């Protein structure tokens, strides 16, 4: 048994000794050149002249590539072909690449990339949501609207209604390893690119397009990333293309990494949202209908904004069975970095919208928000491990979401009750209220919030994966799959799955760099899907080989293949037992193929995006968290005192790695809604472009009491070992911290806090002083 064991990360020893190689650590051939972009300093206008003479003559500069040197202009977009590598005339945002410097060192390239003179007829940029609405600047042809039930009637007939708005800030990924790429020119127009990407196939595709060659001429490779979080799904395209083009022109290896400030200024971030809501409810807090408006700031290019905004809409119900809902989603084009994928992919913003609604309703009816949440939950479904055996007290009708998907695996009722009991929620909530009444200085707040997150790419065809497994005659196993390792432990889980299938010691298995030459047509490692998709593909490939070995040994031992067992690093058949490597050697000698590909496509999903109806998700992942905060009423400073999380990872493939995802996701989610604030000035220049000005949580921000447990339950769908995806869902446990801060303010002021995110100390003090 290797599945379900808390084995360390496959690279843990390489990590701690500094031996793990990242893209910029790969030794380059002699003569390797280094690249940097010169970027626009204004957010909008017409580039009328670009003088790069001083750049060309700067020390160490080998060449400068300007837009005039590229015909056709390579495109970097993952979606709409709307992202020229270099600005072609209309400046779209402050930070947009204008030209490319090729130099003998990274420092020489960076230094030269500031020496241009750009003449720009500056125009008034579209920066804010209001600017974009006024200018009618949007993608997708206007708002996307999905409706379920008659919301107008529900609101008109509801005993009570309320309305509100919440502003939700964006978030910089701050992967510790910045974007990086290395291109090695090959023979006959081919190219080998080594990058830090979640999406090697897209790099391959975009580089091939840029070079004007078929995909077979480009090999795209990534061993590991130093963090991705969605920020390396599409944002590495520009570097890979730049390196490939420069390598093609110079005949020399070319590498590029963004300095941290450049990374902030050039690349996209989490979308910021404004969410407006009108809600109808009864006196108990039962929500009868909600009308949402999502205004999404997408930045200058479409990138992945449409599916991000879709996923926000798909999570506008979170855990709640709401009879009528209408969501209008505006995807606004602004002269800022093109917002992109970030852990949760719009889900967190959509979920925060409905959690704000529930919180607001609870305040209006004067009830504990947890009671109001429970009242509105979907009903739990019982199952016996394989089959649905009925619902809870609300009968046997399986409710559907606002997009028509049956919620047939809901477990949040029982999970929430278990968490509330474990963390002593009710008692602590009362104690906090009593303490606050007597405190003139420190105020405390608490919130317990649920997460229901849909698992699958909403673009259905992406839900596929491939694998390539080789068993060598010495019993060692080399495998590849389409997923990428960014720290989440995907390779560790996949190696455990392979060891489990072969019944062998996991030390026999080596997973090497993800490589488009090994496994083609891969999907991005995104949407939490890595282990679900690739784990299954690898299992299928392993089974193929195991079955060949099994059939061979069965024949030799005059028995049937099902009598051959693979366990304890050995193969047993007909009373004989062979060490695993011995069985492999025998199979080899008998001319049995010990190499196989594997493939997997998620079953049972379908999605009509135009109608907003279908079953986009194979299943849901669930969890709940309770956070308590303390706030200083004089300055607005605060800290998290305690967080308890109970999270559903199905049958965990590796409880230690899953716990790591839950803890890390929570802290990142809490950072999004508290200290992480992106500030653009009124000319559209990002003012928070380094860790000196943009603050991610540090070690002392971790709650001093931090209890994380896995929910004991298996996935009802037939996923790999009935595990559940765990990459994104825990991020949304950070919402509890935000609502706990809101709770503290509401208690102090006696009126609902209407807090916006991030709840920086400044926003907290404004809310406390009633000056927001």
């Amino acid at each position, binding site marked *: 048994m290797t599945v379900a064991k808390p084995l360390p990360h496959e690279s843990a020893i390489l990590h701690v000794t500094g031996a793990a190689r990242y893209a910029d650590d790969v030794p380059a051939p002699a003569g390797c050149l280094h690249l940097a972009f010169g970027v626009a300093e204004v957010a909008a206008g017409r580039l009328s002249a670009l003088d790069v003479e001083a750049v060309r003559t700067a020390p160490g500069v080998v060449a400068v590539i300007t837009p005039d040197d590229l015909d056709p202009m390579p495109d970097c977009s993952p979606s709409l072909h709307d992202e020229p590598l270099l600005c072609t005339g209309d400046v779209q945002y402050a930070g947009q690449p204008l030209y490319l410097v090729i130099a003998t060192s990274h420092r020489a390239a960076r230094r030269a990339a500031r020496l241009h003179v750009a003449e720009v007829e500056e125009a008034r940029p579209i920066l804010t949501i209001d600017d974009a609405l006024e200018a009618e600047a949007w993608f997708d042809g206007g708002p996307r609207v999905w409706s379920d039930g008659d919301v107008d009637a529900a609101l008109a007939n509801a005993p009570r209604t309320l309305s509100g708005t919440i502003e939700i800030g964006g978030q910089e990924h701050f992967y510790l390893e910045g974007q990086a790429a290395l291109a090695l020119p090959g023979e006959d127009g081919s190219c080998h690119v080594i990058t830090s990407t979640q999406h090697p196939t897209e790099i391959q595709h975009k580089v091939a397009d840029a070079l004007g060659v078929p995909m077979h001429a480009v090999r795209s490779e990534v061993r*590991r990333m130093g963090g991705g979080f969605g920020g390396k799904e599409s944002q590495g395209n520009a570097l890979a293309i730049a390196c490939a083009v420069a390598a093609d022109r110079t005949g020399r290896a070319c590498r590029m990494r963004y300095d941290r400030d450049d990374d902030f200024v050039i690349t996209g971030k989490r979308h910021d949202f404004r969410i407006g809501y009108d809600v109808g409810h009864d006196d108990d807090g039962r929500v009868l209908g909600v009308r949402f408006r999502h205004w999404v700031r997408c930045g200058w290019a479409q990138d992945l904004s449409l599916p991000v905004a879709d996923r926000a809409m798909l999570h506008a119900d979170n855990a709640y069975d709401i009879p009528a809902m209408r969501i209008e989603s505006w995807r606004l084009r602004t002269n800022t970095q093109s917002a992109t994928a970030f852990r949760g992919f719009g889900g967190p913003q959509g979920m925060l919208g409905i959690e704000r609604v529930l919180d607001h309703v609870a305040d209006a009816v004067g009830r504990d928000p947890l009671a109001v949440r429970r009242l509105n939950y979907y009903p739990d479904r019982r199952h016996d491990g394989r089959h649905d055996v009925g619902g809870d007290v609300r009968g046997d009708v399986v409710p559907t979401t606002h997009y028509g998907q049956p919620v047939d695996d809901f477990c949040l009722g029982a999970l929430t009750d278990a968490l509330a009991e474990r963390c002593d929620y009710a008692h602590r909530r009362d104690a906090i209220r009593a303490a606050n009444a007597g405190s003139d200085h420190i105020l*405390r707040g608490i919130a317990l919030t649920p997460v229901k997150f849909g698992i699958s790419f909403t673009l259905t065809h992406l839900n596929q994966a491939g694998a390539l497994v080789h068993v060598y005659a010495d019993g060692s196993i080399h495998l590849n799959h389409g997923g990428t390792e960014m720290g989440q432990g995907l390779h560790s889980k996949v190696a455990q799955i392979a060891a489990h299938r072969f019944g062998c010691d996991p030390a026999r298995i080596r997973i090497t760099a993800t490589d488009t030459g090994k496994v083609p047509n891969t999907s991005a490692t995104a949407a939490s899907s890595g282990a679900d998709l690739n784990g299954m593909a690898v299992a299928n490939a392993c089974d193929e080989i195991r079955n060949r070995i099994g059939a061979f040994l069965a024949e030799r031992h005059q028995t049937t293949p099902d009598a051959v067992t693979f366990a304890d690093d050995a193969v047993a058949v007909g009373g004989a037992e062979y060490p695993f490597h011995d069985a492999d050697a025998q199979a080899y000698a008998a001319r049995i193929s010990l190499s196989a590909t594997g493939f997997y496509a998620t079953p049972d999903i379908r999605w009509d995006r135009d109608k907003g109806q279908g079953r986009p998700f194979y299943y849901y992942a669930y969890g709940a968290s309770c956070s308590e905060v303390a706030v200083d009423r004089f300055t607005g400073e605060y800290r998290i*005192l305690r967080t308890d999380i109970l999270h559903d990872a199905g049958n965990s493939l590796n409880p230690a790695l899953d716990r790591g995802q839950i803890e890390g996701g929570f802290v990142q989610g809490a950072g999004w809604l508290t200290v992480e604030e992106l500030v653009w000035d009124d000319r559209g220049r990002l003012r928070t472009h380094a860790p000196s000005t943009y603050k991610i949580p540090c070690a*002392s*921000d971790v709650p001093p009491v931090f209890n994380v447990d896995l929910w004991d339950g298996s996935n009802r769908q037939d996923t790999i070992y009935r595990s559940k995806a765990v990459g994104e869902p825990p991020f949304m446990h950070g919402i509890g911290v935000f609502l706990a801060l809101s709770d503290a303010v509401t208690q102090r002021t006696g009126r609902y806090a209407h807090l916006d995110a991030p709840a920086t100390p400044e926003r907290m003090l404004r809310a406390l002083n009633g000056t927001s």
Partner: protein
Amino acid sequence: MEITFRLNGDDVTVATDDPTLTLLDWLREDRGLRGTKEGCNEGDCGACSVVVTSRDGVRALNACILFLPQLHGKVVRTVEGIAAPDGTLHPVQAAMVERHGSQCGFCTPGFVTTMAAAHLAGATDHADQVAGNLCRCTGYAPILAACVDAAEAPVPDHMHDEPPATPAMVGTGAFAPRDGNDLAEWYVDHPDATLVAGATDVGLWVTKQFRDLGDVAFLAGCEDLKVIEQDADVIRIGAMVDMERLRHAVAPLHPQFAEMLRRYGSVQVRNAATVGGNIANGSPIGDSPPPLIALGARLHLRRGGERRDIALEDFFLDYGRQDRRPGEFVEAVTIPRQPDRLHVAKLSKRFDQDISAVCGAFNLPTTDGVLSGVRVAFGGMAGVPKRARAVESALEGRALTADVLRAAADRFADDFQPLSDMRASAAYRLAACRGMLMRLGTGSARSVMDLDAAGVAR
């Protein structure tokens, strides 16, 4: 010039014409040691941390803003030199593996080196020790658990480094004075030169701004400027005293000053940054001037053989302009001995390791129940660190009551017209000043960060 130091047990001599070559670039590009990572190139993320041993002791430093000449005569251990020569993992490495303290692994070399330095020094304030190391994956809990686990294990023998015999740095390209006299003589003749103390600010001039530093002097060898002396009247802090030593020196005298310094930068930054540098660069958001001004500190300046001393607040003339003549340098700062009545409040978005939006220091001595000799100074509220004279006068001669505090708090707007920037709005800065003063009236000026999980002050 030729720079000699010991690297992971081997003596190395680097010949370079570039006095601003950083250790990080040299390690990765010239030496081929790519375990040390570049995360931010400005000393804020800790991914490039290395262990440096010198006569001053063992310390973690950020290699990205550490110029090679600063290392002359010292010992450096990078992540490649933390495991024993036979490959046995160091206790902090073993604990990081055991506790699942790495995910993507990119920050891990910096954590391992910082933790190894803390382990060697016997430090157990783990969250403070790693506050300068950012991790985006784990949420820190397993890393802190690994710190605790490793603390019990003995320090491996190979970690006990002795600095090599220190020959003078030879060659041209930079000046390395042996003492203050040496510096004074040279600086008069090179008044446009850049003086490099800890390089936590000057480093960014190079890595981010590509500034040409002109003539450069590295002051690390000026042992006489690193002295802390106390007598019955004053405590004298040499300009080259680093922030970590300052913190420990003031802890018994003015604990809130020390507590604020705990949050000044990170261990790596405090180990490098100097008192003289923090004052001389004249930043409006340097954190040491407000408490020093509130304590009535005097600044000691030297030009050639001439010395003078001025009240610290008089040094800061205007934004970017100080009362420092060409060729004159900061030699020391003296703090008058006094009973501790100092309250310090540092406000930032993130509590630890963040630059202040506002830093306030309130020195509130009382005589016969009334405030007497009040000094209030702020950073972040003007173009320079500045006293709040109107607030002081509203407090002076009165008893510390809620009404007096309220009346005084109203005067901040007379003292300050702060800016709005990415750290805070002008309105918030003023509201926070007010809150800091009003909080003194609750009798519990404790920070919210001092609370334990039960919400009780620790």
